[in-house]
C-alpha cells in the first residue's frame, strides 16, 4: 500500500512538453469536471456550514463561540489533540523506521494492523474501550475499586481519538521512507554515526514534509472525531464534550446557527493548519 495519503507538491510534473500533455480544450474540460465534482461533494457542504453559521448574523456567531460550554469544549478538544498527536507521532516514526528500513516476516500483517483503524467503524472503536474499561467491562471492576475513571472521562476520549488517528502519520511516512531506501542511513552508519544521530541528521531532513503533513492530518482528524468519542464521552456539558459533540448538542437544541458556527470553527482550525503547511513549504522551497 505504498503511497497512501501522501503528497509532494513539486511542480515538476505540471511542466510538461506539449506533445505529452492534452490539448487545452481537453485540459480545461478535465479541470472543469474535477472542480465541479469537488464543488458538489466537498465545497458545497463546506459553504453551507458557513452560510448556516451566519444565518442569524455575526452576533449569534460570536456568541456561540464565546459561550462557556463552547470554550470548555474547545479546551478539551485541544487537550485531547495535544496528547494524542505526539503519541501517534512517536508511533508513526517507530513503525515507519521498522517497516521501511528492515525486512522481516509478517510485515504485511503489521501494515494491515496499522491500517485497520481506517476501516473500523467509529462505533466499534468507541465500543471496544467501553468493553474493556466500562464498569461492566473486563477491567471495569478493578479500575472501579481504585477509583480510576477511564471511559466517560478524559483518558477514554484520548484513547478513542488515538485509536482513530493511529494510521495517519505511519501511513504517510512508510511509503516515503521506503522510497528513500537505506543507502544514506547506511553510509552514515558506516561513517560511525550513532543511532539517534542517523535519524536526526539523515532521515528526519528527508521526511520532514511528509511528517509535517501526517501530523497535520492526524491533528485535524483528532480534533474532528465524532463517532468514537461520542460513545466514550458521557456527554457531560462543559466537561466531557469535545467540539464535535458540542456541535451535535447545539443542533439537538435547535440552535442550528450556533451549531454550524462551532462546526465552522473546526473547519477553520483544519484549514488554518493546512495553510500553515502550505506557507512553510513554499518558504522553504524558495530558499
Amino acid at each position, binding site marked *: 500500500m505504498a503511497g497512501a495519503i501522501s503528497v509532494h507538491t513539486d511542480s515538476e510534473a505540471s511542466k510538461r512538453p506539449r506533445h505529452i500533455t492534452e490539448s487545452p480544450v481537453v485540459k480545461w474540460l478535465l479541470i472543469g469536471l474535477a472542480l465541479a465534482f469537488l464543488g458538489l461533494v466537498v465545497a458545497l457542504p463546506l459553504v453551507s456550514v458557513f452560510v448556516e453559521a451566519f444565518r442569524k448574523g455575526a452576533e449569534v456567531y460570536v456568541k456561540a463561540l464565546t459561550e462557556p460550554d463552547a470554550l470548555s469544549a474547545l479546551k478539551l478538544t485541544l487537550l485531547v489533540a495535544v*496528547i494524542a498527536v505526539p503519541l501517534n507521532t512517536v508511533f508513526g516514526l517507530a513503525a515507519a523506521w521498522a517497516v521501511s528500513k528492515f525486512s522481516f516476516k509478517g510485515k504485511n500483517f503489521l501494515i494491515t494492523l496499522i491500517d485497520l483503524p481506517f476501516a473500523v467503524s467509529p462505533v466499534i472503536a468507541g465500543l471496544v474501550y*467501553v468493553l474493556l*474499561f*466500562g*464498569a*461492566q*467491562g473486563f477491567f*471495569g471492576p478493578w479500575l*472501579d475499586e*481504585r*477509583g*480510576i*475513571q*477511564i*471511559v*466517560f*472521562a*478524559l*483518558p477514554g476520549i*484520548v484513547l478513542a481519538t488515538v485509536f482513530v488517528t493511529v494510521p495517519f502519520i505511519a501511513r504517510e511516512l512508510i511509503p516515503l521512507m521506503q522510497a528513500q531506501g537505506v543507502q544514506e542511513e547506511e553510509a552514515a552508519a558506516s561513517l560511525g554515526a550513532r543511532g539517534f544521530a542517523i535519524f536526526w541528521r539523515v532521515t528526519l531532513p528527508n521526511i520532514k514534509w511528509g511528517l509535517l503533513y501526517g501530523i497535520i492530518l492526524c491533528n485535524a482528524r483528532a480534533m474532528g472525531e465524532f463517532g468514537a468519542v461520542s460513545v466514550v464521552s*458521557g*456527554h*457531560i*456539558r*462543559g*466537561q466531557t464534550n469535545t467540539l464535535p459533540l458540542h456541535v451535535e*448538542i447545539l*443542533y*439537538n*437544541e*435547535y440552535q*442550528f446557527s450556533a451549531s454550524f458556527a462551532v462546526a465552522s470553527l473546526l473547519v477553520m482550525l483544519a484549514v488554518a493548519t493546512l495553510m500553515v503547511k502550505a506557507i512553510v513549504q513554499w518558504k522553504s522551497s524558495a530558499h
Partner: protein
Amino acid sequence: MKKTSVRFQTLFLYLVVMTLVLAACGSAKSGNNGGNSGGAAGTPSTTEGSTTAAPGTDAAAESNKPLPPVKLLNVSYDPTRELYVEFNQAFAAHWLKEKNQKVEIDQSHGGSGKQARTVIDGLKADVVTLALGYDIDAIVDAGLLGSDWQSQFERNSSPYTSTIVFLVRKGNPKGIKDWNDLLKDGVEVITPNPKTSGGARWNYLAAWGYALKQNNNDEEAAKQFVKDLFKHVPVLDTGARGSTTTFVERGLGDVLLAWENEAYLSINELGPDKFDIVYPSISILAEPPVAIVDKTVDANGTREVAEAYLQYLYSDEGQKIAGKNYYRPTDEAIAAQFAEQFPSLELLTIDKDFGGWKEAQTKHFADDGIFDQIYTPGA
C-alpha cells in the same frame, strides 16, 4: 545471543516507559476525575456531616459558615435539556438559601436508552431522569440502585408527565384528527425508530392502544394497524430530536408524532406560524421517571442533596418550571394553573394497559418482537 538479549532489554525498557506513561496518564485522569467527582473525594465527610447535622440540633450553627460546594451529575434524556437548565438554577438557589451550600449540577443528555447504558458502563450519575422506567430497571439489573426505586418518590417517581400528540403543518392541510387519519393515502408520518428512541416507543404504544380499542382488543387487527402505520413512515431517525428536525427543517412528512413538550417547543423555537398541534382521541400517559443512583451517591456522599434535588421537582416551584417547559405537572393545584395549555384526553397507562415496561418491551420492541415483524421481509 548477546545481541538478542540487548535488544530485549531495550524493548523491555520501552515497555516499562510506556507503561509508566500510561500510568501517569491514568493518574492524571483520576486527578481530573477529582474535578468531576471532586466533590466526591473531598465531600464525603462534609456532606455526611451535614446529613447527620441537618436533622440534628446544630443545624443553625452549621448554616452560618458555608459548606464546601457540592456537585451533582444528572443524566437525563434528550427533550429535558431546557427543563433542567431552568430547574437546576432554581434548585441551586433554593439549596443555597436552605443550607448555605453551593451546588453545581452537571447535565448529560442523549437518547434515554443510551444514557442508561452510559450509567451502567460507569458514568457516575448521582441522579437519573430518563424517559422510561424500563431504562432505569436496566440500571437496577446492573446493581447500581435498588429495585424499589419507583416507590422512593411520590407518584411512581414521576414528578411530571407528558403524552404523545400530533404536530401538523399550519392549517392541517391533510385534515389529520386522529390515529386512523394517519393511514390515509398520501399521508406521511414522521416518528423516530422505537428500537433506538424511548419517545418512539410511546408513539408506537399509543397507536397500538388506539387500534386495540377500535378493534375490540383484537391483537391481529392492532398488528395490522401499526404495520400499515409504519408503511407511511418515510424516515426513521434514531432519536426524537432528529425526527423533529426532519419534519421541521427538511420539510418532510405531514405529521410528526411527538412528545407534547417537544411539539410545543418546536412551535415556539421554530415557528408559531408554521405548525399546529392536534390532540388525538386517545393517547398514552408518559411518565418519565427519576431515581437516585445509590451506588454513586453513597460513594460521593451526595445522597442528601440528590434526594432534595429530586424532591424539589415535586415542590410548587419545580412543578411550575415543569409546566412552563410543557411537561404536565402532577401536582393537582399547579396542574390546574396550566389547564388551558394541557387539554385533557383519554390516556392509556403502561402499567394498566400494557402490563408494565418489561412486558411491553419484550412483546413489541425486543429482537423479533412485533415491531421487528413489521420489517421482516415477506411478512
